[in-house]
């Protein structure tokens, strides 16, 4: 029987009524890790502990946190810590829950990170749509200042630390760390050329550590208990526990914290199995960017999923049963990337737009025999040809949809309709202010299918 191992989610699961309040946090060991980091440990000890723990970033890229910190130059001031709380990877909802249910744990992690790299100022880049999460963070920051955990001389030491809560305004790309920095500086959220990397030249050109909410929320436990303790879970290259956001056609969609290396089948069991006793037909293991899997016989860690041709990504796991139209799924995913492409790089901006057009006509029964190869060709034109991984991710999701379920795509074309009956033209396209300019701008892609047969020229290879 599969079981959760609750480290980061312990407080929120055991105290569902008030896990976000300072009183409950103090009653359950809160701020002990931060106090230890500030009062008892030297900054280099903190960095060393995190490095030897092997903790890898929980935002998607999986870069070792301690190594990231070690790139920060010691002799440059000021430095910044920035929290990437701009969760938006489809199928992922762990950071939202951590922010809503345990905001103090995040603040504690920020104190530890700041102490380790010598930063006195930090920003939380909180996704604009997270109204409740922002209110909970607001209260937590207020209370932490009141308790002397933030501000001047925290925990009675000589370490000053301030946090500024900053809200995003609706843009998935701002979860990409260099785009986040541009957004935080007041620009359009578009990725930066690297090098230099943010650790060396980040916010306002100063050394900046950008960590994901889950990564930082792990730190208090890691610092309090040590790297050996942390390594009791997971694999050599993927140590520790990880929160997986499970959704789709399962009985109990929710966040589940399990040791890395847990099998996908066990995770499905934790989530109560598939609805109506069906079998999973396709699984997205790490957010919409991750290529599809068709079997649950795989371990959930960075290296195993890479071997299986996919990736751990953000830990957003979506299970789909046999009633799912994979053309529709691929269309929805590609529409997402088309909408969220920032427009900086031509291959991503145009490739996603073009692919949506082709997918729409396949889904609505107007597809052509050559369309599947055309889609794969578009993928080749996007993959590895843009500043940031958004264009890559769009191509991975699209390529895996076409390659894994090519027979379904061909069936759509051959039958001239969607075999799942999902081809009705639901007007889902228009988003208010997608560019924010209303009629003056390109508000969105046309509603699904509306232009499917009016623009055949767009698809000539």
């Amino acid at each position, binding site marked *: 029987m599969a079981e959760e191992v609750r480290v980061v989610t312990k407080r929120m699961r055991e105290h569902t009524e008030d896990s976000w309040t300072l009183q409950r946090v103090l009653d359950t060991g809160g701020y002990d890790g931060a106090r230890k980091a500030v009062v008892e440990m030297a900054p280099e000890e903190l960095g060393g502990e995190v490095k030897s723990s092997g903790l890898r970033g929980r935002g998607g890229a999986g870069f070792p946190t301690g190594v990231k910190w070690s790139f920060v130059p010691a002799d440059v001031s000021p430095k910044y810590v920035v929290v990437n709380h701009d969760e938006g990877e489809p199928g992922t909802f762990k950071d939202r829950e951590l922010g809503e249910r345990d905001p103090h744990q995040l603040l504690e992690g920020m104190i530890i990170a700041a102490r380790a790299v010598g930063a006195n100022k930090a920003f939380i880049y909180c996704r604009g749509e997270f109204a409740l999460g922002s209110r909970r963070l607001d209260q937590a920051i207020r209370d932490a200042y009141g308790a002397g955990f933030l501000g001047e001389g925290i925990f009675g030491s000589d370490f000053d630390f*301030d946090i500024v809560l900053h809200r995003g305004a609706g843009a998935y790309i701002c979860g990409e760390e260099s785009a986040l920095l541009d957004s935080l500086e007041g620009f359009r959220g578009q990725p930066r050329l690297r090098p230099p990397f943010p650790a060396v030249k980040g916010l306002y050109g100063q050394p900046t550590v950008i960590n994901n909410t889950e990564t930082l929320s792990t730190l208090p436990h890691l610092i309090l208990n040590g790297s050996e303790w942390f390594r009791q879970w997971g694999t050599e290259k993927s140590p520790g526990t990880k929160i997986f956001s499970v959704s789709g056609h399962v009985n109990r969609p929710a966040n589940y914290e399990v040791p890395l290396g847990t099998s996908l089948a066990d995770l499905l069991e934790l989530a109560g199995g598939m609805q109506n006793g069906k079998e999973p037909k396709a699984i997205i293991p790490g957010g919409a960017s991750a290529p599809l899997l068709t079997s649950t016989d795989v371990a959930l860690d960075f290296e195993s999923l890479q071997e299986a041709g996919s990736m751990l990504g953000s830990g957003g796991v979506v299970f789909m049963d046999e009633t799912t139209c994979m053309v529709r799924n691929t269309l929805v995913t590609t529409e997402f990337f088309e909408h969220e492409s920032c427009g900086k790089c031509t291959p991503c901006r145009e490739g996603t737009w073009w692919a949506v057009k082709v997918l729409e006509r396949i889904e609505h029964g107007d597809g052509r025999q050559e369309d599947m190869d055309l889609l794969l060709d578009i993928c080749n034109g996007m993959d590895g040809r843009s500043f940031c991984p958004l264009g890559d991710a769009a191509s991975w999701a699209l390529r895996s949809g076409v390659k894994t379920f090519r027979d379904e795509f061909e069936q759509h074309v051959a039958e001239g309709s969607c075999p799942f009956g999902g081809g009705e033209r639901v007007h889902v396209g228009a988003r208010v202010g997608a560019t924010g300019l209303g009629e003056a701008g390109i508000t969105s892609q046309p509603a699904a299918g509306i232009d499917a047969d009016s623009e055949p020229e767009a698809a000539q290879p």
Partner: protein
Amino acid sequence: MTRRYQATGGDIDEQNGYRNVFDDEQQAWADAIVAKYPNPRSAVLPLLFLVQSVEGYVTEDGMRTVANMIGLTPAQILASGSFYTMLKKQPQGEYLISVCRNISCTHRGAYDVIQALSERLGTDAGNTTADGRFTFETAECLATCDGAPSIQINYDDFYDVTPQDAVALVDKLERGEEVRSAAGERVRTVREISFETATAGARLPGTAGDHRARTVGGEAQPSDFLPDSRPKLSHDEGSHSG
């Protein structure tokens, strides 16, 4: 009578040919927002949310007010503001209903919710109702897949929404009744939630603004590899401390 938000209040800046949208109290908030940051440009998004809280949406006068306040051009403000979906550049309703249309929600019935709302509101997604009370849009993943299909009303979350639930929520709001989210939060109006978002940082103690910093974002990348070709702005003159 239309209930659509109209631009209100403020003095005409005759010299520069626009209406300053902030009154004294709002200007105090704007100053508090700017004071949070090492560079005033970082305040662009919260200031535009503040404009939205005053005007109902991001008006041209509002963008000019912000530009003048922090020493940028109106074009620079438009360039930044037009990138983000939550900053609306056209009049919107009192309640913005956002229906997630991403994978988990689609697979659990989001299209039925979208269709029910289209019928109830008499408009397709992307539009505002004729009486100006509701704006209805589809949204990308709202990170609430555990409650799919999910919707937000002015950014507070509703989980496991059936078409009937969605219609009932509209009915309640139309009758002027209080509506509470899945977490029990009172649903705000567009102006209330915009103000809350604008002042999220400014309401709290602490600041990151005790030294002056230059921005490096935008098209030019000052680095060891590229010359800094970006034109200098007046507030860029401060030096890094330390």
